[in-house]
């Protein structure tokens, strides 16, 4: 774990940003509170960050901040759903999700005319797991049901989707983000997806794809 952390000083040196910028981004919720890890060192308490995540995030902010305001960025980066609404045909046409995943969604939850962000996220997650070849269509349904039933309970928190298989039986779990999970030796963790990062990915995709904001 030690090696995965980067101190604040090292981070600023590496990325060339200033303290002011870092604090400003924290204030604007561009950098989640959980990434600020306080540890005691010989100079007192110091702040550390998960190295890969923070470097990727700062890179992203630096690249995007010329095109979008900080508030817009915060919206894209936050794990909370945005208020985008998309028509069902458009999702397939713009290749956000495949037709197969759309069918599965229709079978489990019915097909609405417009997809709000939540529903889009569900299809997108299922699509992601299906296209990686890690789950079958039947298993996609299980995942979808789990999401539909329990995802809302994690509102505002980071959460991970775990997909486990044992002796041909598969099931899926939703747990609070970054928690450690131990499985019995016979079981295999097929995939673990951080929903927050998928939300970010999807939001970026939707905002680039010219999908209109539902508020207009």
């Amino acid at each position, binding site marked *: 774990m030690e090696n995965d952390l980067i101190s*604040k*000083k090292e981070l600023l*040196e590496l990325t060339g940003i*200033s*303290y*002011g910028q*870092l*604090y*400003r981004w*924290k*204030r604007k919720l561009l950098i989640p509170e959980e990434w600020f890890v306080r540890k005691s060192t010989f*100079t*007192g*308490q110091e702040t550390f960050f998960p190295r890969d995540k923070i470097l990727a995030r700062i890179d992203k902010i630096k690249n995007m901040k010329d095109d979008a305001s900080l508030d817009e960025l915060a919206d894209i980066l936050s794990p909370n759903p945005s208020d985008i609404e998309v028509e069902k045909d458009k999702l397939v046409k713009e290749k956000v999700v495949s037709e197969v995943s759309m069918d599965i969604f229709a079978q489990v939850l019915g097909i609405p005319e417009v997809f709000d962000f939540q529903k889009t996220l569900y299809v997108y997650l299922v699509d992601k797991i299906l296209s990686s070849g890690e789950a079958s269509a039947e298993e996609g349904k299980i995942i979808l049901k789990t999401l539909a039933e329990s995802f809302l309970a994690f509102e505002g928190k980071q959460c991970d989707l775990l997909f486990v298989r044992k002796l041909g039986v598969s099931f899926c779990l939703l747990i609070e983000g970054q928690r450690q999970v131990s499985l019995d030796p016979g079981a295999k963790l097929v995939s673990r997806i951080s929903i927050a990062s998928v939300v970010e990915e999807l939001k970026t995709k939707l905002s680039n794809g010219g999908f209109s904001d539902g508020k207009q």
Partner: protein
Amino acid sequence: MANNSMNDLRINGIGSSSGGKYDFVQINGKGDITGDLECRELLINGLAHLDGNVKADTIRVSGKSDFRGNISGQRMIIDGMTDVGGTVKVETVENRGMLRVAKDCGSEVFSSQGGFNIGGLLNAGKIDISVYAQCKAREIGGENIEVRIGGGLSIRKFIGSLFPGLPLNPVLITDTIEGDNVFLENTTAKVVRGQNVKIGPGCQIGVVEYRESYYKDPVAGTNVNESRKI
């Protein structure tokens, strides 16, 4: 939130309310609000206890108030004593009294002519502190940070006579200060880091780490144990 259909809540004398959504909320006397409160303007003259979270465009406290939850809003003006049990997320904070926050305090502009005690991080774009009474924060971070000794000695003597026990030469005490432009007076800190750092009179600093410029007032009573360019 300027909605005409929204009602006002006024407590004159002693009263209580369970909270809710209002346009204008005024407490004159003693008021308890037991739930979450959302309003355009919250004005407290007297004594108030608010058990829930508060969301308001403008919050003004002239008197004493006790917030148990979190506060969010645009502007907060404190001319009295305010305790916050949670976090403060307000665009502009103007403190002319005593502000205590148990957790973090984040704003664009934080100005204080009084005293404060922040249990977490004080994070603001512009931090402007005049130290009139003891100021404490676990950490301070932001873009422009300025800490000055408040008023002349006569004013401090006068305030000291009103509140016996207040030190005559109050200081800001914190673990770390990190910012782009940092100017400090009457500050005790373990670590100060910044682009441009200026240390004025009355400071006790453990380590200064700077990137561009550093100046330390040669006046007696200011101590910097170590300074290095990074």
